[in-house]
């Protein structure tokens, strides 16, 4: 009996590096052979709200898509942006892309290229989507877009003046958009969009963000300032499945090219690694507590 207790105490004081090794293995093994563990993803309430509010938009509605994430948070947010762009283009919605993070422009370019290469949709730059590029200033830019977009953006990412682009002529400020969707990973993020633009001008806003920001944004979701929220990679996997099913049982409409197969998203394949690592973390907590309890028992 005595050595079992010792084993548990030892289990509670593992060296830091052993923990790091266990974590890397628990991520590496499922990634090397993905079909190790096939798990169903159930859609949570908030992801469904986002899907429904975007689904209610009609053809030629105008959506402002704001990219505020970089390469370091790409694994969580990028699958969301691709799923959202697929969803919007399949409904013939005009997409206006801005980015408030320097790396956001490249993330937007990656997402657009991936969709254009899949030639699932007949979309053209300047007609169906436009990329206004990056402007530094965070809340300054959001405030500028809210009050008068000309004060902040005068050229698109290819430096052509906005007045020459037909898509932009009846856009003066945020009230000319039907929906604002913010892909955020920090500051400026969904909180700044709520505070500086959409609250005051009553524009429907929703957001997909990294998991860490979700608990901060929840009061906004609960009070309706944010129409649902896509939370981290699990949220991205859920949204991907929603869009995948939506596209599959949607008879090909005029926005989509025929005979192009729809590929499942990236986030779903990473969920097995995510699940196993979460289990490992829970085991760490349990062992840490057992040994803490036993050592405290031994001392007093």
């Amino acid at each position: 009996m005595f050595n079992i207790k010792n084993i548990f105490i030892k289990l509670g004081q593992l060296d830091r590096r052993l923990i790091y090794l266990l974590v890397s293995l628990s991520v590496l093994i499922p990634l090397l052979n993905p079909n190790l563990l096939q798990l169903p993803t159930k859609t949570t309430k908030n992801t469904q709200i986002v899907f429904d509010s975007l689904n209610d938009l009609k053809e030629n509605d105008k959506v402002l898509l704001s990219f505020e994430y970089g390469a370091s948070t790409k694994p969580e947010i990028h699958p969301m942006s691709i799923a959202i762009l697929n969803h919007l283009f399949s409904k013939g919605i005009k997409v206006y892309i801005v980015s408030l993070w320097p790396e956001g422009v490249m993330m937007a370019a990656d997402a657009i290229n991936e969709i254009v290469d899949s030639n699932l949709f007949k979309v053209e730059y300047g007609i169906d989507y436009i990329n206004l590029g990056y402007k530094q200033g965070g809340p300054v830019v959001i405030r500028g877009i809210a009050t008068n977009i000309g004060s902040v953006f005068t050229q698109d990412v290819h430096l052509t003046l906005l007045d020459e682009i037909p898509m932009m002529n009846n856009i003066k400020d945020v009230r000319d958009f039907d929906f604002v969707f913010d892909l955020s990973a920090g500051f400026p993020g969904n909180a700044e969009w709520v505070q500086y633009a959409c609250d005051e001008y009553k524009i429907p806003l929703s957001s997909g963000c990294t998991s860490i920001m979700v608990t901060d944004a929840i009061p906004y979701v609960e009070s309706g300032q944010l129409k649902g929220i896509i939370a981290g990679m699990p949220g991205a996997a859920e949204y991907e499945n929603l869009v995948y099913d939506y596209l599959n049982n949607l008879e090909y409409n005029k926005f989509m090219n025929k005979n192009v197969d729809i590929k499942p998203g990236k986030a779903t394949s990473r969920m097995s690694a995510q699940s196993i690592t979460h289990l490992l973390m829970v085991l760490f907590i349990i062992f840490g507590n057992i040994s803490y309890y036993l050592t405290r028992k031994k001392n007093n």
Partner: protein
Amino acid sequence: MILKRKLTKYVFLPTFIIGIYLYNPFDIFLIGNEMSFVFIILICFVIEYFIEKSKNGEEIYMRPIAAIKAMEEAVGRATEMGKPVLYIPGIASLDEIDTISGLIILGHVSSMTAEYESDLHVPVAVPIVMETAKETCKESYLKQGRPDLFREDMVHYITDDQFAYAAGVNGIMLREKPAAVFFQGKFYAESLILAETGNSIGAIQIAGTGSSSQIPFFVTACDYTLIGEEFYAASAYLSGSPEMLGSIKGQDYVKVFCIVMILVVFINSILFNFSLMNFNITDFFRINLIK
């Protein structure tokens, strides 16, 4: 007599200003955010009232906050062990109130390090914050009568990027092994990297931030944490001046007012639903400007 003067100053004046605002002569005020205006006037006068009350000598009770008391002890420990004190004022610029609070607390901590003659090290991530931090430290060392101890390279700029800054500060922690580490300011994802490294070198860590998503990491990885509002109150606690303490008491009464408003809105919504009251108070809670 004093009651009459106080009454006029803190009751008639605010109601008079709100009256003019609502009457809106010559249309000089914007329409649509009346609620914000009323809140601002109310908050300002409540805080002003308590500042004045505490200025003419009324004793203010302040509940003890463990993290603030631990600051002096941490600097003392660092001096005993002859190791530096590392102060990190967050990674946001001066346009964040957290950074300003962090710099004010830096003023107090640097006066402690001047008094204890311990070595202070302040790596910053934003050039403007570097300038202001240098200014604040120089003042504290001056006030403690130890301008000779102040070295220009105590406060130095590492880089603006969030994770390059975290990597740089990690390097400083591993190589200089400070005994006391302060995290006071606006933090984002890099807070856990810094707190875990600080923990691995066995330093006393005192954190304070308004970024509520990082508080769990500081709570788990640091010895003491100032949670949200405690962080903003810390600068007033440390200064101890009657004006500052008065403003904290005023802030408390504004909190009571918010709680009352929450209850009023809650009860009103119940009565309104069962049509025992005919108007819904939340219609006033509009903040969108009709331009």
